[in-house]
């Protein structure tokens, strides 16, 4: 275990020793991977000492900036779960793993794990978030969509750390929602998950973004054709139904596994999309 004295120190160490050295924040994924024998890092670089420095959630020049070490329970104490526009964060938190894990798990870690069950990724996709990466060479900002290329695979160097998550503030007449369900209520992967961003103007869908745990690959992604179909149309159940029956199946390819069939997952994607859009709408109109 390497305990860096500062973030720069951590970056230096990673530059020299990655990928034999891996960063650990909350450890809620990496320690399980090690326990199962899936990875065998020689050294872990402990970032947990920097939580104080890197757990902020602030507004800067029309953008929301979140420090990568913000814990899930930490996010619950910020404006993110109160601002009508970003209530999707409250939804993710409510179904995140279990309350016992929320103080350890970090949003940066959720992105770093990069699987379809990384719920923050799904939500951040509909906020068109970007990620700031830092290394000894400096920093760079990359769209989240480009950062995660495949299951557990990020387009970043082993010596880079996820530093911040950034997205533009949404307009007032918009909101977000996230839906997840499974056979039981908590400690679940979710049969499917769906995040939506919706902007309404006089009952017309001004802008909409819809992301799922999986669209056609093994990572969270957006259903862009479905979004296009909905844009500009009047918000109604019929329109939504048309969108998910006629357009969504053209871009979504679900897989069957021992937990659920492709057919069920596709159908539930439709239901979750509808419910998430309805929820976002009701939030825009003043409810919760």
């Amino acid at each position, binding site marked *: 275990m390497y305990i860096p004295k500062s973030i720069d120190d951590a970056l230096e160490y990673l530059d020299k020793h990655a990928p034999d050295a891996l960063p650990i924040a909350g450890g809620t994924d990496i320690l399980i991977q090690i326990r199962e024998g899936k990875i065998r890092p020689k050294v872990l670089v402990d970032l947990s000492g920097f939580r104080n420095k890197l757990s902020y959630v602030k507004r800067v020049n029309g953008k929301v900036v979140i420090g990568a070490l913000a814990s899930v329970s930490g996010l619950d104490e910020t404006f993110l779960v109160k601002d009508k526009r970003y209530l999707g964060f409250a939804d993710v938190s409510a179904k995140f793993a279990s309350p016992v894990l929320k103080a350890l798990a970090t949003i940066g870690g959720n992105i770093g794990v990069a699987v379809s069950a990384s719920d923050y990724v799904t939500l951040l996709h509909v906020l068109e978030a970007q990620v700031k990466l830092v290394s000894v060479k400096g920093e760079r900002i990359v769209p989240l969509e480009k950062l995660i290329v495949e299951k557990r695979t990020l387009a970043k160097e082993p010596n880079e750390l996820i530093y911040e998550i950034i997205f533009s503030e949404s307009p007032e007449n918009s909101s977000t929602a996230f839906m997840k369900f499974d056979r*039981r*209520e908590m*400690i679940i992967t979710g*049969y499917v998950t769906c995040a939506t961003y919706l902007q309404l103007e006089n009952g017309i869908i001004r802008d909409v973004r819809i992301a799922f745990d999986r669209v056609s690959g093994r990572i969270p992604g957006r259903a862009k054709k479905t979004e296009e179909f909905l844009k500009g149309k009047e918000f109604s159940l019929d329109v939504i*139904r048309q969108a998910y*029956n006629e357009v969504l199946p053209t871009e979504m390819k679900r897989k069957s596994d*021992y937990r659920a*069939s492709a057919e069920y997952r596709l*159908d539930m994607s439709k239901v979750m999309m509808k419910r998430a859009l309805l929820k976002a709408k009701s939030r825009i109109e003043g409810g919760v």
Partner: protein
Amino acid sequence: MASPQAEYVKIVEEMFEKKKEFWLIGQYVQRWDALSKILGKAKFTADYAYLFKNLVYVYSVRAKYAHARIKKIDVSEAEKVPGVLKVVTYKDIPGVNDVGYVLPDQPLLAYEKVRYIGDIVALVIAENPYIAEEAAEKIHVDYEPLPVITNPLDIVSFGGLKEKEHTLIHDERGSDVIARFRILKGDVKKGFEEASVIVEGEYRTQFQEHAYLEPEVALAIPEPDGGVTVITSTQCPHEARRAISRVLGLPYTKVRVVVPPLGGGFGGKEDVANEIGAKAALAALITERPALVVHKREESIIGHSKRHPMIARYKHGAKRDGTLTAVEAEIILDTGAYASLGPFVLWRAIVHSAGPYKIPHVHTEGVAVYTNNVYAGAFRGFGNPQITFAVEQQMDKLAEELGMDPVELRLKNIIRNGDRTVHGQLLDHGVGLEEAIKKAVEAADWFSKRKRYASQTGTLRKGIGIALLWHGNSIGAEGADYSSVTLIINRDGSITFRTGLTDFGQGSTQGLLMIAAEILGVPLSYFRVEQPDTSTTPDAGPTVASRSTAMGGNATLVAAYKLRQRLNQVAADILKCSPDDIEIHAPEVYCRSDPSRKIRWIDLVEECFWRGVPLQEFGYYRAPKAVWEDETGQGEPYFTYTFGAIVAEVTVDMETGKVKVDRVVTAYDIGKVINRVGAELHAEGGTIQGIGYALMEELVHDQNGRVLNPNLYAYYIPTIMDAPGEIIPVWVEAGYRRGPFGAKGLGEPSINGIAPAIANAIANAIGARITSLPITPEKVYLTLKRLGKISL
């Protein structure tokens, strides 16, 4: 029932007849161990490891394939790893390499074959667990893979349940069918001819994992005389001792099994202690150091027994007025790689296979077969939850066909006092089933809800369903059924209670204390429970089969009764009144007719010592011998039955298929409520475990016999948010005259009826039936979609 009346039976019957007033029985009392547990001070098995300095750790190296022949095991490289003390294989077993509970079919360490992925090929004994696990990777086993069978229908087929051609899993036995039982009464062909309606169905249930929060653990300490003490989490210390002795080749007197409180059992720790105790003991004797075996959760899931999955085909026939004429069934249980308790599970399933009804013609036939899945054994209910899931849905199907209310149909057919069961057993008293149904129906407001739910629209639909159950108490024809306790009144007036019955949360020992306290007239605070220990606590039989209250309770009652007689005699002599006149309300003892004549409890006890009146008593009770005819299933399989009626209410989300259980009313006839807290907790806990069984739990194997979800993240047991809003227990006390004050068991009945009640409630809500467990949202949704009842 022709056996001569033993003294202990007479005592139990006398208490049932005579004692009508109770000062403690039926009250709410705190568990004897609640305080130590709430403070976090109670030591569970793994906690004992803290007390030992010189521990060695034992790591079990598991099979690479679910079915393969072993050509060679090479441990030489592993043994050279620094910190490894020894790598043990089958060659190092001093005694018999077998830990099977019923059949001698289960090697501790694999020697010619592995039959499931949890089979152990070697044990690494090392200075620390990390080294042990590392060294395991250096063990090389030459396997010759064999075809893996995960489907029991590859072993037998319906239409006679004959064994099919296949690569035998247990070639040494010559057959992969471990047991066959049946009920054959009357002539079902005739019965179906007399029927106006016939309903058929195929029902499937899944592997269920116990998921007790405390994984298996054993700590073995070598003794100076070459023996061993094993501290382990087991439900059956004397069984574990038998198995460990066998493996080590030692007499029972050199093997001591000590049982701390268990973190849950549910049947899963019935036979696994044979294995882990033997592993730890072997390591301790080889290294002459204390040895610790701790299973990780994943190991626990793939390593220990599960609930038998069932595939059953049922056919019920009834007259127009609802009277049952015939029941026919073929039942297949998958016992996995080893038999474990399989033969007994099958037997209990068959005994209960027609439900608690009067039926003139019955032919139910069942087999239990090996596969290369994880082996199946004891799990709360023991074959009964599977059967009840099938039978109670069949009854509802009949009700639908006949246009009858499901409650009315059942009332028409249930057994009552004076009726005979399908085995021909006369139950002349103690059948509280009708009362249970009536109480449940009333508490649930059945009839008005059925009316209300008959016409619903919208995405959320409510449903209400009922299921009946019966559960034979104790082990029936499985073996000699006895129990024993020791009650010792110490010279300072305190009381030591010793029994080999273990506690894994069910708290039945509390009930035993209450029986003793009730009879002796002494507060519970005077008692101390010694932990089960084969060297000091008597063999009470295994803590299984819902027998602790019925059997252990009787043993306790007998001991307390005899002590009380002696105390009465001495007190009567001192106080100059008759023994029947003595009232004991410790710390006071006095004559009822003249309370001024009194003596203190401690003085009475002291007097007994001086007079040479022994104040310790060994209480023993043996159940009447069960009678069972193999060819016909006729006889008296159990001495009494617990009955129950469960009404469940659900809400179904038609768009997702998700089912929420809103409310469950449980009405159990347990003869007499002894430990009211324990009884209520059983009703609640069994309901929640039953909800898991009904809606979300399923251990899945792939076609190579590997478990796909061996951890608590992928194997879903209910969380607090999945519990129903309300669980309402109501009690019926149709006393059984040979139970302690009439009491019967509840440990297992409390799960049997939950899944079928929920299944029937779901059918009520959505107008379609799902006949396989678990009833997942996907199954509900796709059923609705195929029937056109939902379209997105």
